[in-house]
Structure formats: C-alpha cells, structure tokens
C-alpha cells in the first residue's frame, strides 16, 4: 500500500465530518443530500482502504454495492425533493416541520 492506512482514516474522518456538518447545518435540502453522499463516500473510502490493507476483496465488493445503492437513493431523494418543492415552493428544510410535537 502506497498510502499509510492512518492517513486514509484521517482523510475519511475529515470527509465524514464535513458531510455531517453539511447535513446538520445547511438549510437547503439538496445540500443536505450532498452531505449524505459525502458521508457515504467517506465510508466507501474506508472500505476500499481496508480491502487493500488486508488483501481481501469483500470491501471492494461492498463498495460496488454501495455505489448502486447510492445512485438509487439519490434518484429517490431527488424525486422527493422535487415533490416537496412542489408542495411548498421551497427547498428550505425549516418549512417542513409537520412532525413538531
């Protein structure tokens, strides 16, 4: 392995944290979805790294699955974003608080 595993983990953590921050802090639904994608990719990066470190293919297989799953998820999410946008003419997440107690 040309890149030390620790570096890879640090990069993945930073990516995950950035994604998380994006999810928590942004108000725009699309930005939140992007944050989720980034977090998923961080996880994928760790999987690939682990696979390379231990010479096991499972991790890479899992990442293939993850990509398929992600594309499906994104298509559904974006469809929902379109739907939500149609309902309230906004993609601001603060407008959707019907679960309020």
């Amino acid at each position, binding site marked *: 392995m040309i890149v030390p595993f620790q570096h890879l983990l640090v990069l993945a953590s930073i990516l995950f944290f950035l994604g998380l921050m994006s999810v928590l802090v942004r108000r725009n639904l699309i930005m939140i979805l992007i944050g989720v994608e980034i977090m998923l990719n961080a996880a994928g990066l760790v999987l690939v790294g682990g696979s390379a470190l231990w010479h096991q293919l499972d991790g890479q297989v899992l990442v293939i699955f993850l990509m398929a799953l992600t594309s499906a998820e994104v298509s559904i999410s974006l469809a929902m974003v379109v739907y939500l946008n149609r309902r309230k003419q906004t993609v601001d997440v603060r407008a959707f*608080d019907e679960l309020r107690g």
Partner: protein
Amino acid sequence: MDSRLLFLLILLPLAGGVINACFGCRLPRPLVALLAIGAIVGSFGVALVCLPLAAEGTRVTLFTWLAGAGLKADIGLLFDPLAATMVLMVTGVASLIHVYAAGYMEHEDDQARFFALLNLFVCAMLCIILADNLLLLFLGWEGVGVCSYGLIGFWYAKSENALAGRKAFIVTRIGDLFFTVALLWLFSLLGTVNIAEINLRATELNPALLTPLVLLLLGGACGKSAQLPLMTWLPDAMAGPTPVSALIHAATMVTAGVYLLCRLFPLVSLSPVGMAVIASVGALTALYAASCAVAQREIKRVLAYSTMSQIGYMFLAVGVGSVAAAIDHLLVHAFFKALLFMGAGALIHLAGGENDIFKMGGLKRKNPLLFWLFLVGILCLAGAPLTGGFFSKDAILLAAFSHGNGFSACLWGIGVFTAGLTSFYSFRLLYLVFFGEYRGEKAGHKLSPLLVWTLPPLALFGLFGGLLNLPHFYGGHEMLSHWLGSAATAEVPPATEVGLLVLMGLFFVAGWVPAHLFYRNFKGEADTPWRRFLLQGWRFDALYELIILRPYRFTARFCFIAGDKGLIDGVVEGLGRTMLHWGGYFRQLATGQVSFYLQGFAWGLLLMLGWLLLQAAV
C-alpha cells in the same frame, strides 16, 4: 284440609301488591283499591278457615330456599296458636284499614303505589309472623322496613316527609343490625335457623353467651318497636298518610319487636339479666313516651307517643315472663289504636286538615257518632275499668307485681304511675278535640262514610277485648293464655287483687280529674320551658344530633377533605400534573426540524464512539 292453603295468607297480599305495582297505573281507580282490599280480606278469610290447623301447631314447607354449608332455610310456615292469633289480628285490622284507606285516599294521586305498598307491608308482616325460620322472618323484617320507608315518605314531594321516611328506615336499620348479629350468632352456635329447633335447643347454649344474645335480640326488637333508645323515628313517622300510621301503630311494624321476643321466648326467658333489661326498657319507654304525650300538640303525635308507651307495657310483660299478657295487650291495643288513628284521620278531615289539637275543639257537635267511637278508644287507652285496655294492662301489672322482688315492684310502680299519666293525656286529647268551642279557622270537609263505618267493629273489639283473656277472678277462663299454652297469670290473694284493682281505678280517676279541670274549658296553655322539653320528646333528637350525627358528619367531612380530596385526588391528579409538566419539557424536543433530529443522531453516535473508546482504553 290441605295445610298448604296457609301459603295463601302471604301470597294473596303479595299478589295484590305486585299486580298493583305493575299494572296499577293502568287500572281504573276503584279497581286498584278493590284489588288491595280483596287481597287482604281474602287473606283474613283464609286465616279464619285455617284456624283449626293452629291448635296443634302446623308446620308446612313449600320448598327449600337456601341449602348448603350446614345452612338450611325453607320457605316454610309455622302456624301455631301464637302465629294464628297474630295473623287473625293483623289481617282483620288491616282489612278495616284498607277499606278506610280507600275512603281516605279517594282524592289522592298515586293510588296504585299507595295500595301496592300497603299490601306488601301486610305481606311482609305476615311473613314475620308465619316464618318457621329466622331467615325467612328476617326477610319479612326487612320488607316491613322498606315498605314503611315508602309509606311514611308517601308524600315525598315535601322534603320533611321524605326525611321522616328516611329517619324511620335508618333508625330501624340500626336495630336490624343487632338482630342480624344475633341471627348469625345463633346459627353459628346451634347450626340451625329453625325457630322451633332454636327454642328447643336453647338450653344447650352456654349461659354466658345467652345474655348478650338476648340483648342483641332486644336491640333488634327495640328498633322495630320504637323502644328506648331507638324510638326517635316513631313520632316523625306521622308524616305518612293516616291509614299508614294506623297500620304501623296497630297491626304491623311496631308489634313485630314484641312478637319476635314472644316467638323466641323459650330462648329469651333463659337469661334473667336479659329479661330484666327487657322489662326495664319497656317500663322506662312507657314512662318516657307517656310524659312526652302529655305536652304534644299534634293529634297524631299524641297517639304516636301513646303507642310507644303501650308497646313499652308489652315489653314489660315479656320481661316479667308473661307472654299471654303481652299478646293480649297487643291485640286489644291493635284494635283501639287502629280505632284512634282512623278516628284521628276523620277528625283531621272534619277540622279541615288541621293537625293541632289546640285549634280543634267542639267537634262533638259536628259528628256525635265519631265522638262516641273515639271515646271508646280513649277509654281503652286510658284503661277505664272494664274496657279491654283495662284488663290487658292490669294483667301486665299484675304479672309484674306478683314477682315480688324489689326490682319488679319498682317496674310495677312505674307502670302504675304511667297508667295515671296515660289517663291524663288521653282525656286531655278528648277534651281538647271534642269539647268547648271550635278554635280553628279552617272549614271542615265532609266525611266519606267509609271513614266512619269502619270504626264500629274496632270499637267493639276494643271494648270487649278483655273477654279474650278474662282472669278467673272475674269468672273468666283466661282463654288466650290457654290457647297460647303459656303459663297462667300468677295467682295472688283476692284481697291483693282487689287492692290492685282499686289502685288502678284510682290512678285512672287521678289522671282524668286534672284533665277535666284543665282542659274542659280550654283557654290556651302557657309555653313553659318544661313543656317545650316534653314537646320535643326530652330533646332526644337534639341529643342524638350532638353525640352521633355531628361527630359523624365531622368524620365524614374530614374523610372527604383529607382523605378523598387530599390524599386520593392529590395523588391521582398530582401524578397526572407531573406527567403533563415533564411532557411539556420533552415536547420541546420534537421540533419537527430534520437537522435537529439528525443532530441528536450525531450526539448519540459520538456518545457510542466515546463509550467504545473508553472500553478499549480499559
């Protein structure tokens, strides 16, 4: 003759009552009354037909009512001389009262309810009289209580009438409690509730237990018979219609206590202490009630106190061991008291609904026949020589006198003094109502003939009731004593007997003369505190208010405020309020903002990771 015919005695009034209760409102008016009268008169007829069965004492069982765990209670009747005498009296007097009631209640609403209750009342009383076990007797005992409640409070729209009904029900219920305990105790001791068996095996009982048992029975009898200290309900029971008063005072209800003690006399007589207490309760009640009657102003209240007083005499008779004298007085009293009450009802009509004897007067001219009939009742009550009331009262006092010890001599003295008082208040009533000028303002109503013509038979029986149990001294045969199979009245030397008779006569006159002097030309009475004290029945109501009702109410209020409001409501509502309060805090967490929830996820994740790290470090 089929002895099961006896069940008709109870079933006829029951059927009459039930039919009137269920369909009475749809029947035409005269039919309701006719049905009720028919049921009671039919019952009286059956009693007459069945009389031969009583001589031997017939027992008949219809079916077993309750069985199991050693308890066996039948729907069974015991028709012996004692029961037969009572049944004849009750059905006979009740028949006349029913006929009278048909006239008295002519213009009232709710006849169906009235006559249904009246019939059921008689039915319950017959159940007491005829029951061959204590449980069935108890059924009738409670039935009488319920019916009296319904009848005393018949005009329930006025709240004092409803209150009087409630008072009668609750006070007699206190007595019933004693009776219930005695009943259960007897069952646990002897394993049976059969009256004949209990009487037979009474000697097996531990003498130490007998006295409390007898006292419990006495407590029950006191409640129903309005004896000290459970007598406060009777004067208030005047709130009911007059036929009801007549029925309560003459034929049913108040005689039930005396009858119970007579029925269980073999058991009761085994406890000398119990007997002494019964006799003293009787004598003291007789004196107490007579003293109250002296100051009463309402005609029916005078009679109510006189009933209480006469029942006291009956208790005295039982207490000194003379069942025959008690039953004799019970019979004669039933006749003349029914006469007096029904007469009083007619008088109230004559005076235009006026109850107060101070506002009556001069009614002799309005209806002379009624005067003579009422006079007979008064003479019997006062114990005028040679009337029925004289002989029966004399027999009781003789029985007390012949015991010969100081205690019973004392009771005898009370009895004789009370006889003088009785004579006084009886004539006071007579003079105030019939003599002098009419003092009322209201115009009288016309009397229905039913109100007057039901009285003569009662007057005859009252007047000649003494013949039933005429002592040997007068050439009689003490028929009633023989018929009841009880011990003959004690023999005393003729000289003593003559002395006692003269004494009784003297006390009768001693009561009459002052009444004549004070009330022949009545000008009004000063309202002294002493009189007010007697008018309010020695203020027993106030006393009970003070020592029972007020602490009870205080406890109830305490329980309500501290227990119910404070503790229970506090815990329940407090729990709910705490939940609501905290729920308000938690509610703020549910903002509906997705990022807020996700933040929660993140913090949770952080926590879990931290925990795992901590685990790894250790």
